[in-house]
């Protein structure tokens, strides 16, 4: 520890600390622009100059290491003169357009200029003019004359997003932030650069000119899009969400949010909102009052249960539903005598259901990731499924943690990987088994009998070695591992790998309530999310799901819905598919409009309040379900508030949920590769993943939102004899379609990657399995 005195305040800091670090400890504010605690130090703005005893010139606090006994003055004459001098330089070429600047009111330059700027401009030359740039639908670079060259955005790309999309071209005062010749910024984390920009150079395109910062009220929320539990501020004006910003929580999202978290709010104000309950009368949907609609539903469900038995009713919810909604839905379903309820629509293999000791979870806290020495991710399109989880692993790899990936897609996680194995989906369990086998061999111990014939290759040995090194290790199963037809085998193998290597095993988790759904008991006792469509039911209750996009086999799900006599959808949006298939549409609150709870992958329990009212006649879904329960005369539907519902589920909640455990008992490994000439790989594109994000206009204009293609390697194409085609007809169990071919040699041989969750591919069939491709 080193002694330091700052403005007369003494403190001790660990060796390697800078003056800025120390100042933060004693609560002394040192003005700065380029410094950011999550980015490398560049010391270029010079705003943080302070006086250090015995130093002849002022020193930048952000870059000057503390030495023992150092005395620092942050507000001495020398320091303040230096700071004022820098401020004058920053302002000479800065446009004086604060009144029309989007950053107005939250601009670090504006704030500091008040304290440090001179009263009278001594600069009388022409100001620099920097041309605007178009970098895509999310970030506006309309006003680049405002840039103060702090390079935070550039460093963010290089260090946090893992891809350098912005750079500072040219030199001297002609230096300019830009992309490579007019390219767009495509990183799924790009919006953070807007927050990082200390002035109004990078601003939010969707938010541009929509409101002034001081007109907005700031409310806390949590992202519904993935399992991280990202903390948000939702900014509201006139009962309308205008903007979403990160709410800093070092243990969860640090200070970042993904673009999906940031821009999905646009969907809230889209024209697809369902505003009134609707009931199908004589073949067509009519708007009705709530009481009519709910009566209709209650009677209809009771009828079905009476005539066909409870299990003729199936309920399916989106994993981004709130804990309370999931709980009341399963309670209602069970009240109707059905065990057919689920919240995992993209799952295929349920063999571990009821064999698990507790609720599956991440296996450790998010904040522990940085302490890992090795991590292996199995079956994940990391960046797109879990942008901020990927970011944490990226930082881990930058700090010498060994990160390996075993997956079926060839996408670049932008992580400096220790090893990577990319195989066809049917081979995924074998690839994992090879690592298990390699660990067992390296340790000279026995493993599962079923692995007798598995032969580890060099890559699996390298992954095994990384897991056997000293320290903390983890094996993470991604969305794809959970959606996989052999998900249970993958789970058991991962547990075996954990047992042999001492690594923690965890599920990254799909959906904001991936853990919450388990705690809510929204799990089937008969008829899971797949089977409920294999054996069509008479009635369906759908909460926030769009089966033709969200289910493992959308074609099959749609067919089952068509034959049902009663389809009730609780949904914030309406779509053509809903209008075609639903018998009752009940408008419910969307994200931000209802209170509720999310229990994230790490088991963190986070309850949020609704931050604005529902549009039209929409109601929070938990209230709708509660009223339905009452109408059906079920007991236990009398909760006054969502908090009351939550307390029923998790007691008086602490920070983290209990009962989390990834062990399984009595599920055996089945290693048999189906013989397929060609198999499908499905990814879920980031901006099609749920009903909210797929309606967010700006996100729909990004490169991540282009229509699905048949992505296939040149070798595969050649073996299929369609090397010359640009279009292909793909035929799968439930249907066929024509797609354009995208050659991508990173796709494993014998596979074609066709994204799920999109209308253009929804008729095909299972996410994985045999498929045919012919020239079209």
């Amino acid at each position, binding site marked *: 520890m080193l002694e330091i005195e700052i403005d007369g305040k003494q403190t001790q800091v660990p060796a390697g600390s800078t003056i800025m670090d120390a100042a933060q400890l004693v609560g002394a504010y040192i003005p700065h622009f380029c410094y950011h605690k999550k980015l490398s*130090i*560049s*010391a*270029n*703005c*010079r*705003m943080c*100059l302070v006086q250090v005893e015995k130093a*002849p*010139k*002022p020193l*930048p606090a952000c*870059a*000057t*290491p503390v030495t023992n006994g150092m005395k620092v003055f942050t507000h001495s004459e020398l320091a303040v003169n*230096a700071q004022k*001098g*820098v401020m*004058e*330089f*920053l302002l*000479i*070429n800065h446009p004086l357009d604060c009144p029309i600047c989007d950053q107005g009111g939250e601009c670090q330059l504006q704030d500091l200029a008040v304290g440090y700027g001179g009263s009278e401009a*001594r*600069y009388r*030359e022409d100001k620099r003019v920097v041309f605007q740039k178009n970098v895509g639908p999310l970030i506006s670079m309309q006003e680049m004359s405002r840039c*103060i*060259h702090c*390079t935070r955005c550039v460093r963010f790309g290089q260090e946090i997003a893992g891809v350098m999309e912005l750079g*500072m071209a*040219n*030199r*001297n*005062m*002609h*230096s300019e932030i830009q992309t490579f010749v007019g390219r767009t910024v495509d990183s799924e984390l790009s919006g953070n650069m807007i927050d990082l920009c200390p002035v109004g150079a990078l601003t939010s395109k969707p938010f541009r000119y929509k409101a002034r910062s001081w007109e907005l009220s700031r409310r806390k929320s949590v992202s519904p899009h993935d399992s991280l539990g990202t903390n948000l501020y939702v900014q509201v004006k006139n009962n309308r969400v205008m903007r979403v910003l990160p709410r800093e929580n070092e243990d969860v999202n640090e200070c970042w949010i993904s673009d999906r978290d940031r821009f999905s709010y646009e969907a809230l104000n889209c024209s697809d909102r369902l505003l009134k309950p609707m009931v199908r009368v004589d073949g067509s949907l009519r708007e009705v009052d709530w009481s009519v609609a709910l009566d209709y539903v209650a009677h209809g469900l009771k009828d079905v249960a009476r005539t066909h038995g409870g299990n003729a009713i199936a309920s399916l919810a989106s994993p981004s539903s709130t804990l309370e909604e999931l709980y009341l839905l399963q309670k209602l379903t069970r009240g109707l005598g059905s065990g057919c309820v689920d919240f995992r629509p993209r799952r295929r293999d349920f063999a571990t259901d009821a064999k698990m000791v507790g609720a599956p979870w991440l296996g450790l806290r998010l904040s522990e990731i940085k302490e890992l020495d090795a991590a292996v991710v199995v079956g994940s399109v990391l960046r797109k499924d879990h942008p901020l989880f990927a970011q944490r692993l990226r930082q881990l790899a930058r700090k010498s943690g060994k990160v390996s990936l075993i997956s079926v897609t060839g996408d670049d996680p932008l992580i400096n990987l220790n090893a990577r194995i990319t195989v066809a989906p049917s081979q995924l369990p074998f690839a994992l088994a090879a690592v298990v086998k390699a660990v067992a061999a390296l340790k000279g111990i026995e493993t599962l009998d079923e692995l007798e014939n598995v032969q580890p290759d060099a890559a699996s040995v390298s992954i095994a070695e990384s897991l056997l090194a000293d320290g903390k290790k983890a094996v993470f199963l991604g969305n794809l591992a959970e959606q996989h037809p052999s998900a249970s085998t993958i789970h058991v193998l991962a547990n075996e790998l954990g047992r042999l290597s001492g690594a923690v095993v965890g599920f990254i988790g799909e959906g904001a309530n991936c853990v919450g759904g388990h705690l809510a008991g929204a799990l089937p006792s008969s008829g899971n999310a797949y089977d409920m469509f294999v054996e069509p039911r008479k009635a369906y209750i759908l909460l926030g799901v769009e089966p033709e996009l969200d289910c493992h086999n959308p074609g099959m799900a749609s067919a089952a819905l068509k034959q049902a006599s009663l389809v009730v959808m609780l949904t914030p949006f309406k779509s053509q598919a809903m209008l075609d298939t639903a018998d009752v549409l009940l408008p419910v609150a969307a994200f931000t409009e209802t209170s509720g709870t999310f229990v994230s992958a790490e088991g963190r329990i986070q309850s949020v309040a609704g931050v604005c009212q529902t549009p039209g006649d929409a109601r929070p879904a938990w209230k709708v379900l509660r009223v339905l329960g009452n109408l059906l005369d079920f007991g236990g539907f009398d909760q006054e508030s969502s908090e009351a519902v939550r307390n029923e589920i998790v007691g008086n909640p602490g920070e983290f949920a209990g009962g989390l455990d990834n062990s399984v008992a009595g599920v055996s490994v089945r290693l048999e590769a189906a013989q397929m000439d060609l198999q499908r790989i499905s990814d879920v594109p980031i901006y099609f993943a749920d009903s909210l994000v797929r309606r967010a206009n700006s996100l729909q204009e990004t490169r991540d939102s282009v229509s699905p293609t048949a992505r296939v390697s040149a070798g595969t194409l050649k073996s299929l004899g369609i090397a010359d085609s640009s279009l292909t007809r793909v035929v799968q169990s439930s249907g066929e379609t024509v797609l354009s071919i995208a050659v991508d040699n990173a796709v494993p041989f014998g596979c074609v990657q066709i994204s799920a969750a999109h209308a253009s591919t929804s008729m095909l069939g299972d996410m994985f399995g045999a498929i045919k491709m012919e020239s079209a």
Partner: protein
Amino acid sequence: MTILGAIQPMLTSGLDGDNAWRLEHYLKRGGYSALKKVLAEKISPDEIIGEVKKSGLRGRGGAGFPTGLKWSFMPRDYQGNKYVVCNSDEGEPGTFKDRDILRYNPHSVIEGMAIAGYAMGASCGYNYIHGEIWEIYKRFEEALDEARSAGLLGANILGSGFDFDLFAHHGYGAYICGEETALLESIEGKKGQPRYKPPFPANFGLYGKPTTINNTETFASIPWIVNLGGDAFLNAGKPNNGGTKIFSISGHVNKPGNYEIPLGTPFSTLLEMAGGMRGGRRLKACIPGGSSSPVVPGDVMMQCTMDYDSIAKAGSMLGSGAVIIIDETVCMVKALERLSYFYYEESCGQCTPCREGTSWLYKIVHRIENGNGREDDLELLESITGNIMGRTICALGDAAALPVQSFVKHFRDEFIYHIEQKKCLVPVDIQRAGSGFFSALS
């Protein structure tokens, strides 16, 4: 290059004929004897560094930092690569000595770097060569090939077990790459933007490894020191100013060029060696150490001796030894305008005071020169330079500020005349005659 001087020159002796740069010629002149001696006698690294310390050799790149001391900063028992890097980016206006060293005596640099590598435990080196001198770069590459084929570079040099390889890196037009950390960034394939120090290159240098950077002339002095001893080198100059040094003389002299003289030689002697003032005109001013050093009025300069201490006493710096001679045909405002343009153009653009300050300075001086000066401009110039100096990442900020301060200080009258009269004190036709370009026409 012209060699004159009171004592036998060290860097430039025996460089006659077109082939003086070849290995064969260098060997005939006794070249590589220092490296051979070090390797054959297994002289310890400490001993070599001790000798260099004793020699009083100060860095010839501009800052004049004691070379032996710098070498001793390299971590001793570092596991992994260390680097020695030669700074031949010579872009300081007025300096053109390193080009001639590489042109006529490249092996002296190679030998000096190999010895440095041995002394600091580095097995790889780079020589960063100024962009505009492609022909010199090609020649240096050829010299490297010669040395490699003769077993003087590469693995197991002369069977000693010492490995050292050396490569040339060609710049492409950026003055700032002469700054040592910008130079390292440039070798790493990035923009040449200086790094904040600390950490210093000795701890975090090229590719993050311990690195020592010296100027071409500094390295070229090493063989001599090893051969004849640190004391001999020191005695060739004067205390605290060891050795001989090459001065590049440009501007209004009859024989511009490089002159190697012992440090401490009177300026008047040097001026004489360079053929005296062109056209017998009066010495108005002299910039003694490259464009970044403060200008010195002619009469003050005539009293100086050419060494670090004397020039410092005159309020300037010996810098890289680039002596720019300015006679009475020159408008000092115009001269400063050109220098200010240079720093504005060459600022790397990363740190605020330099990026914004250099362009502001230039705009003001430009205005004054073009008859649009204002009453308070001189005060403003002084204030702006004060706000740049000592507040930038690298010394380019100071380099841009010092000329402005010194020009305004010593030639204030001319600036005031420009501002008040909206024209130049020195008549235009006299200015035009100064360069002698058009007199050749008639």
